[in-house]
């Protein structure tokens, strides 16, 4: 066996192990409270994948990924809000969100069409499928428009990060300002459950965990396939040297737009799943801290490894949840994560995935012997 074959086997082995653990977890753990928590962290893992795809493979640092996550979350939350019992409290058989009743002018008709200004926007969300479709469609459309503008104008590097950062802050403020329609700072709470074919998905049910777990694995495999296609390889060449790729005749912007949009679509999908598991949507999804945290997870896990970024996100959040059982340790944990993060950037820029690769390289060397070492380099992943 050559060194490369060993590497490929190891790579697929890690993917297989990850999927087996994620899908098999409910068999080992019957604490539904923790299962629900882990479902949320798997969603974060999906965000890690989205970041690794745009940052690691396309070289585009998106500091506003929370925008797409938040849009996806809000879209599906609007549908689930209308299915909630709290939207039925005004007496009629047609739902109106409770916060709109509180905000309505006295004497306003208690109908979704016109109870407050702009509430008609909610009308199509009475159908759950509409909210779910929009949870992917809206982030994708926004990302398509935004990235077309950015990459056609050849804005690059740190300026992309600043534009995405400013945009997520902008939308966050708009959501907060549109208080009568979005419930402002408080966000959408007391949501109903996802209902598919008459089955209600209680967030604390194993089947809801499986929705998230299967989605995460699917996204992981899909992105892994995507980066190994011809388009994925061209994308990586645009990251390494955009001018050369352009010179060779590739439409660099088109590849960047496509992968930026895919990354945004994954984030929107993640937002949707998060709402199903966590039962709320709030403007805090669009805070800068959240968007930067995603980048932190990806960097600790390995910015240029899809599965590394996912594991980084899941690991950090699981440890954090364990640490925050006691209040004192919660604050100390933040300090530790800050230090870890500085150290990772300084000494381990490839993250956990890089560490694993180096380790695998050593094992492979020991097995194959020194002869091949000079001949072949380590593959990218």
């Amino acid at each position, binding site marked *: 066996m050559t060194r490369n074959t060993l590497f490929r086997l190891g790579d697929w082995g890690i993917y297989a192990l990850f999927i087996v653990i994620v899908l098999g977890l409910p068999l080992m753990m019957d604490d539904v409270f923790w299962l629900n928590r882990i479902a949320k962290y798997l969603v974060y893992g999906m965000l890690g994948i989205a970041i690794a795809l745009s940052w690691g493979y396309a070289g585009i*640092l998106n500091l506003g990924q929370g925008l797409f996550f938040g849009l996806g979350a809000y879209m599906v939350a609007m549908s689930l809000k209308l299915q909630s019992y709290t939207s039925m409290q005004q007496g009629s058989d047609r739902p109106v969100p409770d916060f709109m009743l509180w905000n309505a002018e006295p004497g306003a008709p208690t109908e979704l069409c016109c109870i407050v200004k702009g509430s008609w926007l909610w009308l199509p969300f009475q159908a759950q499928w509409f909210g779910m479709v929009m949870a992917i469609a809206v982030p994708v459309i926004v990302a398509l428009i935004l990235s077309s*503008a*950015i990459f056609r*104008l050849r*804005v*690059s*590097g*740190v*300026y992309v*990060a*600043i*534009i995405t*950062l*400013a*945009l997520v*802050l*902008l939308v966050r*403020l*708009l959501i*907060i*300002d549109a208080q009568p329609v979005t419930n402002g700072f408080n966000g959408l709470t007391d949501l109903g459950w996802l209902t598919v074919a008459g089955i209600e998905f209680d967030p604390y049910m194993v089947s809801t965990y499986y929705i998230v777990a299967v989605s995460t694995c699917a996204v992981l495999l899909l992105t892994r396939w995507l980066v190994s296609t011809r388009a994925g390889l061209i994308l990586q060449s645009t990251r390494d040297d955009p001018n050369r790729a352009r010179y060779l005749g590739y439409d660099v912007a088109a590849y960047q737009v496509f992968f930026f949009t895919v990354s945004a679509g994954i984030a929107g999908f993640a937002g949707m799943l998060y709402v199903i598991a966590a039962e709320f949507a709030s403007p805090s999804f669009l805070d*800068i*801290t959240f968007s*930067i945290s995603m*980048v*932190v997870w990806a*960097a600790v896990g390995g910015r240029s490894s899809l599965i590394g970024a996912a594991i980084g996100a899941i690991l950090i959040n699981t440890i954090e949840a364990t640490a925050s059982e006691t209040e*004192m340790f919660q*604050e*100390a944990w*933040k*300090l530790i*994560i*800050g*230090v*870890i*993060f*500085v150290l990772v*950037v*300084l000494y381990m*820029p490839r993250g956990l995935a890089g560490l694993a690769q180096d380790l695998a390289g050593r094992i492979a060397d020991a097995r194959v012997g020194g002869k091949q070492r000079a001949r072949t380099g380590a593959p990218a992943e």
Partner: protein
Amino acid sequence: MTETLFIGLSLSSILLLIALGLSITYGAMGVINMAHGELVMIGAYTAVLSGIYLNLNFFLALPLAFAVSALVGMALERLVIRRLYGRIIDTLLATWGVAIVLQQLIRLEFGLSFFGIHVEGLGPGLQSMDVPSFLTQPFEIGGVPIQPYRSFIIVVTLLLTLLTWFLMYRTSMGTQVRAIMRNPQIAAACGIDVRRVSAFTFAYGSGLAGVAGVLLAGFKTVMPDMGASTVVDGFLVVVVGGVGSLLGTVLASGLLGQINGVFAILFNDILARAVVFGVVIAIILWRPRGLFSFRSR
């Protein structure tokens, strides 16, 4: 009208105060220092602590905060940033970690709170600083009410800007800094000690953040995460103005501050900030290098 302009001017001066230090560290050194807000916070805490323990008044806190923040900045440059020159995105990420660490150090009272020791003036709570009474009594000039503290901030910002201009354009150190800005390799080849100059530049930019912190402490509550929200605004100003252009930073803070002020009166504070972000996005898309940047090769 004059009042609107004055509000805009005072918003601009605070923006400028924060952006001035960033314009130096980012412009001269290509470092996106996400911990700049925490250096502001450290300045504010220096004022609070020196008031409690040293009985220093507000005016003496200004140079002290400059010194403390400059020292912290120098340590930051030596320990972290020095290893990351040329890796701009990594400076952003590493200093984000540093920002968390600095916040938590204040919140946990440098770890003393684990041992049940409480240091007055530190910890997760809110702190406040006393401002001399003659700076808080509004007065009138020709029928126009003047907020003395806001005017004081404007004056201090103006003086610091002039000082920075003088240091950058009229001293040999400044010439060296500007040479490094254009091209660090050539500057080093011409015999400039890039490491030393960079360390001083970073310390100076950090010191300016400390002064900004004292001034902010005069009208905002002091708390561990007070700086975190300021750093983004500061960056947007620097980028809009053009990296490495002092004039650009001054004008951009004026522009964004006035836009904020005008729209805050037309609509409300939230929408005004949203408009500012919109303008920033448009300007970066239109001119990614900012409004006033020098031509680079």
